[in-house]
């Protein structure tokens, strides 16, 4: 009997969320637990003169207060080797500020009390005295000589420079009929999942094992990081993933609090719980995206792209966190996009400022690069009097040209059909009709515009994932994987793969991604990699298990039937599954893959208020193969919704003193249902030869082209002169009004 699940829109079981029984970390309680409250810096840059904890310590219910003096001098390490340089270790963050604070929100002390209300009361009484210092709060000025240094001992605010070069750039520019150059800026914004971060740590007094609930995304790495920082073996640390209320890149990286809460549980011998509050979240959890680009593009008069030069300053915030130089590296890898450049040169700089450190947020680097490149392509189309669609048609890499490599850079496109995807997006949107509608509405005095963007997206980053499939006495199977679930439904998708490959009904498969003690290694849920890496590892583990059965039964693997706790041959001969051991698989992926996507937006501006309304929004992505089209569509639509927020509403603002101005959900404006259209999702399936399942990433891609498409649509609505002045995001009402004013 065969079971066919791959490609089917299986509904996931979401009953725990519908009856309230889902258990997030705040819902986990341990006997005798204490509550931690982090005391954070109220200033952006200062020498710490004194931290007086006496009054806080004397408050009712307070158990302890720790400062940097109480913890070893450790740093949070970088997770990915590709994001490390020989210098990055100089900029890593200590769990508690030592001598100097470098951003508003930096942890200075932790108060532990018997009750969260009392902990907050006492935390207010920790007396902080500072000697305030100058603040660097802009990426471009931070990189200039003579400016204040965030880490003076290093002599620079530059964390890293990422150079990429392809072809003969000078020569290509010399041949150009037209060269356009501008500055473009992407603003600081971030993921803001509805659940804040939270942790609960407890040491088992019998075994000495430290358990940390509240893990997400990269729990095996967090275990490794804590092992190094706490000086205890990995086998004595267990990270447990509960239900996770959204991640989008920011949740689950190792943060200062992961160390602090674990440290306190070890020191006090009692469970310690910490639930981040929303104001803390806005200053403590990774920010993303802020960067400024100086971009120059060269083309021929008939619209052939020749070359580009990009120099960029990418904000890292005050420290390099666990994602290392990704804020500078990822924009560089995505700047060429899906076009046949003859040459390019990129030089991105990771720059320090006195603000919350920066990490990755859904579609990292690629969203920023796509905005920069696609905005400039629209400018170019306008200068050349070309339909922006035609400009892209003339330059997209043809399917026959794949695999395409921009050697010596690491950018290689292995599979897909970019022009076909782009045409499909335009067809689905009814591009010709849409232009007529736009023109008719304009004739009636409305301010409407169409914009689009095409892009490539990195995904399926390695190095590998493992999977174990364990037969259970009841005839079912538990599949252990090292990736995580952040609410996207990956457990359903992985169960589909495992069940189909085992040849069993889905009900027989349980996906376990909750506990580091169940699998030796794992790299986690990021870079749209979970389905590709864990899915292929599971397929291999299923083959392994079936192969063991086949060997025992002396039949081809395809003839084995797994059912009722037995592996059975066509002859009727059988062996108990319990005698087979576990199925094990490991899928290695030495190189990431790029996939193609595109977005199209129709917007209207209210000229009286500057408000942009997105009337229609379409996103297309080539996912290789959709394991569960329904869940995938929801991922793409949700990511696009975030992209709309990023394009027109959300911004993490700071004042000149480095004080954050967006620390409430009332000031950081995420879109509600009133601001969003019904997003149209188009799934392209062009399987990649790079893995047996043929899948590419998909969870982030709805984001990537969205801000660029909206910005181009707004520029289209504004008309030639005002549109050309659109150089920065977000397109909040005040900014759009400003563009509507005569220059």
């Amino acid at each position, binding site marked *: 009997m065969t079971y066919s699940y791959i490609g089917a829109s299986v509904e996931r079981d979401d009953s725990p969320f519908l009856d309230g029984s889902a258990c997030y970390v705040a819902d986990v309680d341990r006997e005798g637990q204490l509550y931690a409250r982090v005391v954070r810096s109220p200033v952006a840059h200062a020498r710490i003169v004194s931290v007086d904890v006496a009054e806080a310590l004397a408050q009712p219910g307070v158990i302890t207060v720790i400062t940097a003096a109480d913890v070893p001098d450790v740093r949070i390490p970088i997770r990915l080797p590709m994001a490390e340089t020989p210098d990055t270790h100089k900029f890593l963050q200590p769990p508690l500020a030592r001598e100097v604070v470098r951003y508003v929100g930096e942890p200075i002390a932790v108060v532990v009390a018997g009750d969260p209300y009392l902990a907050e009361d006492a935390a207010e009484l920790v007396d902080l005295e500072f000697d305030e210092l100058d603040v660097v709060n802009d990426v471009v000025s931070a990189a200039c000589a003579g400016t204040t240094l965030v880490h003076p001992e290093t002599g620079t605010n530059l964390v890293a420079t990422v150079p990429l070069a392809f072809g003969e750039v000078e020569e290509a520019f010399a041949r150009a009929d037209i060269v356009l150059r501008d500055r473009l800026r992407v603003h600081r914004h971030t993921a803001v999942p509805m659940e804040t971060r939270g942790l609960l740590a407890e040491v088992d007094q019998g075994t000495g094992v430290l358990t940390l609930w509240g893990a997400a995304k990269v729990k095996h790495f967090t275990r490794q990081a804590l092992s190094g920082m706490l000086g205890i073996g990995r086998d004595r640390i267990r990270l447990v993933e509960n239900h996770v209320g959204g991640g989008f890149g920011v949740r689950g990286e190792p943060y200062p609090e992961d160390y602090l809460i674990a440290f306190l549980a070890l020191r006090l011998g009692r469970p310690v719980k910490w639930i981040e509050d*929303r104001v803390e979240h806005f200053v403590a959890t990774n920010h993303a995206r802020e960067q400024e680009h100086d971009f120059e593009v060269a083309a021929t008069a008939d619209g052939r792209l020749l070359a580009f030069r990009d120099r960029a300053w990418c904000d890292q915030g005050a420290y390099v966190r666990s994602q290392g130089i990704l804020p500078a590296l990822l924009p560089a890898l995505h700047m060429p996009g899906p076009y046949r450049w003859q040459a390019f040169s990129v030089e991105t700089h990771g720059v320090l400022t006195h603000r919350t450190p920066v990490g990755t947020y859904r579609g990292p680097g690629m969203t920023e690069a796509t905005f920069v490149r696609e905005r400039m392509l629209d400018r170019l189309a306008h200068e050349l009097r070309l339909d922006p669609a035609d400009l892209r048609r003339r330059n997209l890499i043809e399917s026959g040209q794949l695999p395409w490599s921009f050697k010596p850079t690491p950018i290689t496109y292995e599979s897909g059909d970019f022009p076909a995807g782009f045409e499909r997006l335009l067809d689905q949107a009814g591009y010709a009709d849409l232009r007529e509608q736009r023109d008719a509405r304009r004739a009636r005095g409305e301010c409407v515009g169409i914009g689009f963007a095409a892009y490539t997206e990195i995904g399926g980053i390695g190095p590998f994932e493992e999977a174990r499939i364990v037969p259970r006495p009841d005839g079912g199977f538990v599949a252990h994987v090292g990736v995580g679930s952040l609410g996207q439904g990956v457990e359903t998708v992985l169960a589909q793969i495992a069940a189909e490959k085992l040849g069993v009904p889905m009900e027989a498969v349980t996906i376990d991604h909750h506990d580091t003690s169940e699998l030796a290694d794992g790299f986690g849920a990021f870079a749209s990699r979970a389905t590709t890496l864990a899915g292929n590892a599971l397929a291999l583990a299923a083959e392994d298990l079936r192969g063991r059965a086949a060997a025992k039964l002396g039949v081809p693997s395809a003839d084995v039937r797994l059912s009722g706790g037995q592996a059975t041959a066509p002859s009727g001969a059988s062996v108990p599954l319990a005698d087979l051991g576990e199925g094990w698989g490991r899928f290695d992926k030495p190189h990431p893959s790029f996939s193609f996507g595109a977005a199209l937006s129709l917007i209207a501006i209210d000229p009286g208020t500057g408000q942009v309304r997105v009337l229609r929004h379409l996103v297309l992505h080539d996912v290789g193969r959709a394991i569960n089209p329904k869940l995938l569509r929801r991922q793409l639509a949700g990511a696009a919704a975030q992209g709309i927020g990023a394009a027109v509403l959300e911004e993490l603002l700071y004042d000149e003193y480095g004080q954050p101005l967006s620390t409430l959900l009332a000031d950081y404006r995420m879109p509600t249902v009133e601001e969003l259209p019904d997003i149209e999702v188009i799934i392209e399936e062009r399987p990649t030869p790079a893995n047996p399942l043929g899948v590419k990433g998909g969870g982030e891609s709805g984001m990537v082209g969205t801000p660029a498409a909206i910005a181009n649509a707004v520029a289209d609505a504004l008309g030639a002169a005002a549109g050309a002045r659109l150089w920065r995001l977000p397109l909040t009402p005040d900014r759009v009004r400003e563009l509507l004013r005569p220059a």
Partner: protein
Amino acid sequence: MTYADHRADHHSGPQTRDSWLEPDDRAQFDLVVNDQPVHVRAPARCTLADALRQQGLIGTRLGCEQGSCGACTVLLDGQPIRSCLTLAVQAEGCTLETVEQAPPSRELHALRRAFHQHGALQCGFCTSGFLMLAVGLLRDEPDATPERVREVLSANLCRCTGGVPILRAVLAAQQELTGGDR
């Protein structure tokens, strides 16, 4: 001529507290939650959300604790409120409904099914609040127009779906509850 609309005046119970409950004291009082009597012991400053969660009713989630996200929405005397913006002691003697309600009201039952069918949730953290918001709306305004439903749903934040699938689900539940008249 008096215009007051008593549907909006939901404060049942004559209970008063005419002497000071001091900051360090704990009030003892009763609530009715999901048709069950619940005895609460909490200081004056304890929010209704925290009091419910301390009773094990963890389905009431806290996403911001200052009234912006709506994840903690519950029904107080039949009306959706943000339980982080109400003191527990203010609810003394009141009737509360939370997402855990079992058996669910007919509105909650229809909404749960519609949320599942229409992909109205991913991470699920906002789901309880949206469900209770929609229960309150569909009970109070069964014939609310789609525009009205959309406006009311804009009260709560969903970061995973953006909210349009939630709107679709609530409209589907409404249709079921009103016998398909709309």
